[in-house]
């Protein structure tokens, strides 16, 4: 899987000094642990998404990097130097807030120039950089408007320009697209991603939307109840989820619970060969990896697992549809296939054992 994102990922792994290193960060509010022992590195120019459900601690982690919260233990280094000991206004990190947080008493251009003005840059340099930043987000014609007079999507762009104009080493984005409607949101995902490529600044993007995370990220850090579940590229995390939780949270999956004995896994009436140690095992099988085949082909190939089932439910999703199938042995499977007119009755199915990816049981936390 050679994608354009690979070099970035490997450079972080290859022991080059990362831009940001989070080491063993833990945080609790009162008796309530929010983050437990988070370690994560962010490479120069990388687009990293922190993905998690609400309450997973993702916003808290972002606020610790920005300096609005302090960790109870652990440390954060930027280019080898302690970042977590600095107040927020001394960090070369800027944030795009969830609700934009534009200053209502300042015009669009005054908002964008705010960081440069407090840094006491010369007036003409401020003017040039503000103009460039507004052009970059295609908002030049709104320079003199007040934030209350422009739409949510436009406020979003201004918030982005206001952060990027300071040329931060790292840009933090706290669910910046969550307040936009679906179409605008998809458009902004693409724009944001190409903008990030253009400026080459590392982005740490927080979202609860797995699709958004997959579209935009070089790497996804999946957070669950204050701990990192898996950190990998979108393709890797989708095709090789490490845990049952990851498999279910990212995309849609069938979890098959089986028992391995002498190189063969048995799951209800199904069986296939694996090279795994003996004992109970859990497999993730993506709905699109199950195929409908002509009935009674009676495939005896050991590289496919065949089964029969009855279509119970058909959900139309546009180009594809999701079928709910109850197999003869009682097992229920989801199957994704190209859309066709009404499907009913019994079907013959098969999948390759290679597509059943072994996953770890996600540990209980709480």
């Amino acid at each position: 899987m050679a994608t354009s994102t690979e070099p970035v990922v490997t450079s972080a792994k290859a022991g080059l000094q990362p831009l940001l290193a989070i080491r063993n960060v833990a945080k609790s509010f009162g008796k309530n642990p929010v983050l437990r022992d988070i370690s994560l590195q962010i490479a120069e120019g990388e687009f990293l998404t922190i993905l998690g459900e609400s309450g997973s601690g993702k916003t808290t982690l972002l606020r610790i990097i920005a300096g609005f919260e302090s960790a109870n233990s652990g440390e954060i280094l930027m280019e080898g130097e302690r970042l977590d000991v600095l107040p927020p206004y001394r960090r070369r990190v800027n944030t795009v807030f969830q609700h934009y947080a534009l200053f209502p008493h300042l015009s669009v251009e005054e908002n964008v120039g705010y960081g440069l003005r407090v840094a006491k840059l010369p007036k003409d340099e401020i003017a040039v950089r503000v103009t460039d930043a507004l052009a970059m987000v295609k908002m030049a014609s709104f320079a003199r408007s007040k934030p209350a007079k422009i739409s949510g999507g436009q406020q979003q762009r201004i918030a982005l320009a206001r952060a990027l104009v300071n040329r931060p080493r790292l840009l933090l984005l706290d669910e910046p697209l969550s307040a936009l409607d679906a179409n605008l949101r998809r458009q902004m995902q693409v724009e944001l991603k190409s903008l990030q490529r253009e400026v080459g600044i590392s982005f740490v993007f927080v979202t609860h939307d797995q699709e958004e995370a997959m579209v935009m990220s070089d790497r996804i850090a999946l957070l669950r109840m204050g701990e990192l579940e898996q950190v990998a590229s979108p393709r890797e995390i989708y095709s090789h989820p490490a845990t049952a939780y990851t498999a279910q949270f990212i995309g849609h999956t069938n979890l098959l619970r089986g028992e391995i004995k002498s190189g063969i896994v048995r799951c209800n009436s199904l069986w296939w060969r694996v090279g795994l140690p003996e004992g109970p095992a859990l497999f993730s099988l993506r709905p699109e990896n199950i195929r409908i085949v002509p009935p009674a082909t009676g495939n005896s190939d050991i590289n496919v697992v065949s089964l029969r089932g009855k279509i119970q439910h058909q959900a139309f999703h546009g180009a594809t549809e999701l079928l709910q199938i109850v197999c003869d042995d009682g097992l229920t499977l989801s199957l994704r296939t190209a859309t066709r007119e009404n499907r009913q009755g019994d079907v013959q199915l098969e999948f390759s054992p290679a597509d059943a990816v072994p996953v770890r049981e996600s540990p209980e936390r709480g």
Partner: protein
Amino acid sequence: MFSRAYRAAITLPPLLWVVLFLLIPYGLLFCYSFWSVSPAQTIVHSWTLDNYRELFRVNVYLQTLFRSMWIAGRVMIFSLLLGYPLAYYLSFYAGPRKDLFYQLVIIPLWVSYLVRAYAWKTILGSDGVLNTLLQYVHLTKHPLEFLLYSPFAVVLTLTHIYTPFAVLPIYAALEHIPRNLVEASHDLGASPLQTFWRVIFPLSIPGVLAGATFAFVLSLGDFLAPLLLGGPSGIMISNIVVSLFGAAYNWPLGAAISLCMLILVVSLLFLSEKLENKWSFR
């Protein structure tokens, strides 16, 4: 949508109230200000501008009006200087003690104004708490006379009484500032001091204007504090109005002064509201 009878039924009480307690009294005040008093101490119901001429001819009226504004102006400044930090602390730093402190600001308002004015008399008088203390620690040999019966005493008392009126609108304005704006400012590199002057203070201006207006207008029309603590040098315009309506029995002149005050105050309220609108952005 609603029946005529229903609409009439809900409009009538407020309308009656406005007519009975506002329109008729102000109408009377207006009429009186153009009437006069005969040497036989009866009201002459014929129109004249004499009262207004008198007002601008006799120095004591304008002088007292300016002194009242000067006293009210100082009360306003001191109330803001005391009230703003208090409101700021309450809103940003009081944390879980916020409600307690808020109540502490409110509680004095439940105590009779008269009691609070008398309390200052007890503190500032020749045999008062302050003078006794100063002499006891040998800072002064004789009681300080300027403490009581002076504009100083009036300003001090009014500041004490009207500071809560400045605190509350400022506090409300500060509470309305979204905290993520403060974070955004820090995030963009502004120190706490820069954040205060560039974000917090500008956004609290509507509250400051409202507080300033309360303190100034309420002080300007005050007559109890100057009566109890002002002495001859601390007389304010309301004291003159009171005496004109009372012992001096010159209702027409009193009415003319009242009307001028009313116009002044209404203009101030109008101006303050215009400014507040200019400085609010939601």
